[in-house]
């Protein structure tokens, strides 16, 4: 059983299109995250949700809109895709926000490789 799953695994699209990436966790966690890994493998937090509420937004362009329909899902919608959006996007989850009232390690999904042409 996959703990944190993402779909699709690969996504190739044209500049200007709108696309979504879905994330689901079956760990019963309250907190979910989106990270972006660039071509140099640098990982950076984008968003964090706790109990379906946004708690961290790391100055991500507003073309990126996360949505959490329930605690087990955190989807990422991207409008007007740009070349610079090409990256691997990782979803993660933890019992509660990492480092807040406990360690709450994060569990990562397999990633979605987005290529914008």
């Amino acid at each position, binding site marked *: 059983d996959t703990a944190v799953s993402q779909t699709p695994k690969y996504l190739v699209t044209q500049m200007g299109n709108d696309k979504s990436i879905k994330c689901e966790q079956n760990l019963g966690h309250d907190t979910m995250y989106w990270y972006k890994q660039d071509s140099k*493998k640098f*990982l950076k*937090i984008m968003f964090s949700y706790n109990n379906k509420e946004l*708690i961290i937004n790391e100055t991500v362009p507003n073309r990126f809109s996360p949505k959490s329909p329930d605690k087990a899902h955190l989807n990422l919608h991207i409008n007007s895709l740009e070349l610079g959006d090409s990256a691997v996007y*990782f979803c*993660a989850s933890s019992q509660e926000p990492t480092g*807040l009232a406990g*360690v709450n390690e994060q569990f990562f999904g*397999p990633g979605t490789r987005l290529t914008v042409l």
Partner: protein
Amino acid sequence: AQSVTQLDSQVPVFEEAPVELRCNYSSSVSVYLFWYVQYPNQGLQLLLKYLSGSTLVKGINGFEAEFNKSQTSFHLRKPSVHISDTAEYFCAVSPPGKLIFGQGTTLQVKP
């Protein structure tokens, strides 16, 4: 603000040799520290974590790390590496609510 610096971008090593991957962090408050591993085309897997207490932390796959508060370091070590340890290794620190990662170190184990 907190930050993490991994001092080596690539570490080539022969199979069965020992290895150390270096990580320094910067923080004005107590933090939790982590090492994650990313195998090719996969997500991140937790190797080990430091919360408090003993400065030597043991993780999975024979890895261990030593927390040194005075040097603000959290270096990862393994006494004898295998080909299967070839991967990207990330050190991370946790301000509340997120992880801040270092730039990553590519461990290349050669036969």
